[in-house]
């Protein structure tokens, strides 16, 4: 089987390994679907990795296993030298929907992870930090607004803040901006890049957009379906920081074409 264990990270910013997945497989007992087979992957500190692949090839499953939300059937997941055996504080997650709670104001939503883990008093102390985060994502002045009054993009910004408030070492993102229109999506992606650099966070992004993957990532994991496995890990050696106008460079186009070719091959199998 195809295992991309010792991937060469040359060209990408190098750091110590934070996430190490070895031979991770997942078979859903309910319908005996083999969602993942022998996936091995190493994420290095400060790197940005995207996963791309056709629908149903196990991207979300991989993310949930990494987040400790579901156990793998086989294999090992190590994060910062500790095996992942459940949800952890050093993991931040974001989903396609912002999922802000309508009975809490923006800032109350953001400190919710603190409230859950450390109680109300700690949440209150974290308010200042929540205000700072809101300012970073351009939501200054919306601290005490209820989510009903936020647009889709604003809600996703707030949910970025909620993810960041616990200062996670890794960010797991499952198509976080796919519900947004293309313009705000591009803007959010640039913002995401900036935040990751500022916080020196390691990011792992599931996406359906090849362009989005290429513009953001150091590495792109291309997956094949049935069973879900890694087809190839593509290194993107565009300079950092990335800008939107890089999308028009020939290099960008080359990488996009290469990945598109991989994905089309995957469809035939």
């Amino acid at each position: 089987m195809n295992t991309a264990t010792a991937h060469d990270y040359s060209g990408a910013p190098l750091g110590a390994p934070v996430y190490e997945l070895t031979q991770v497989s997942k078979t859903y007992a309910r319908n005996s679907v083999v969602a993942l087979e022998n996936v091995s992957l190493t994420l290095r500190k400060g790197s940005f990795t995207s996963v791309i692949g056709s629908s149903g090839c196990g991207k979300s499953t991989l993310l949930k296993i990494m987040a400790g939300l579901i156990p793998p059937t086989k294999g090992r997941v190590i994060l910062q030298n500790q095996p992942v055996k459940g949800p952890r504080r050093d993991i931040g997650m974001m989903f396609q929907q912002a999922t802000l709670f309508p009975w809490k104001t923006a800032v109350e939503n953001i400190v919710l992870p603190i409230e859950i883990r450390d109680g109300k008093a700690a949440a209150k102390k974290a308010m200042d930090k929540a205000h700072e985060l809101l300012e970073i994502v351009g939501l200054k002045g919306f601290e005490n607004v209820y989510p009903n009054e936020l647009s889709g993009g604003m809600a996703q910004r707030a949910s970025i803040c909620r993810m960041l408030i616990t200062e996670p070492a890794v960010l797991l993102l499952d198509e976080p901006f796919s519900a947004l229109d293309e313009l705000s999506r591009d803007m959010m992606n640039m913002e995401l890049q900036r935040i990751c650099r500022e916080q020196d966070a390691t990011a792992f992004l599931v996406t359906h957009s090849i362009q989005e993957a290429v513009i953001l990532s150091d590495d792109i994991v291309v997956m094949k379906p049935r069973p879900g496995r890694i087809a190839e890990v593509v290194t993107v050696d565009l300079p950092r920081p990335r800008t939107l106008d890089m999308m028009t460079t020939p290099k960008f186009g080359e990488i996009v074409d290469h990945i598109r070719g991989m994905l089309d091959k995957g469809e035939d199998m």
Partner: protein
Amino acid sequence: MTEYQTNAPTDADTAQDTVWEQEVAFIDAVPRWIAMTFVFVVFIGTWQLVTSFGLVSPIILPTPMETLKDMIFVGQNLLTGGYMLVSLWITIQEVIYGFALAIAIGFSLGVLVGETAFGEKAVMPYLVAIDTMPKVAFAPLFVAWLGFGIESKVALAAFIATFPIVVGTAAGLHAADENARMLFKTMGASRMQTLIKMKLPTGLPQIFTGLKIGAVGVMAGAITGEFLGGGKGFGELIRVAASQLNTPRVFSLILYLSVVGLVLYLLVQWTQRRVVFWQKESVGSYDG
């Protein structure tokens, strides 16, 4: 040049009917209270016509005037603390105790059924089975167990109102979507935290829908209990008036009773608006 100046409609434009404006439907332009008054007038008018032309016997349907006169009489009795007020107070107590009991039992069972797999698997089928029974048929049993006092009426009222609250609570606890559940899981929330900080608030609209249906049921239960189990409540006054063919009295008693029911319903609705402040209002439905 001139074709760029057509933004502001000129006389020529309107004359040629080139302006397309949204038309406001007549009913949208009429204030609610006027529309309601209109229906009220039509209703009373029809009533007056039917009775004054002798289409129905006065024993079956009194005239609006007779009913109004009786309502004034009953109103005076109530305001001066007469025997009717005593009866009304008994019925109100039955309703309050019945509703409180229904909320306590209904909410607890709803959490059991909506939150635990055991409740869902083992308890829910029985609740559904009991819910499909004609619950007023239990009235004689409650009288036999609890006597002719207010206890048997409270029991029947609570019995009827409990089920919608159970269903509303259980449905509410299932209302949270996959994303919210996953989010709470990633935050390492305990089951209790997930229930209190996420599932319950998410389910409040459904819970209140259950409470409103329950509020209607509790009135029906209390009055049915009085019809079937005697006592000294308002239902008994209605029963006696009806047996004396005093139809104006029956009508006016029912109208006063409906005020009690309405107040209870509005109380629940008012609480809902304050508690579930984020919910969009939809007038005229149980969700509103």
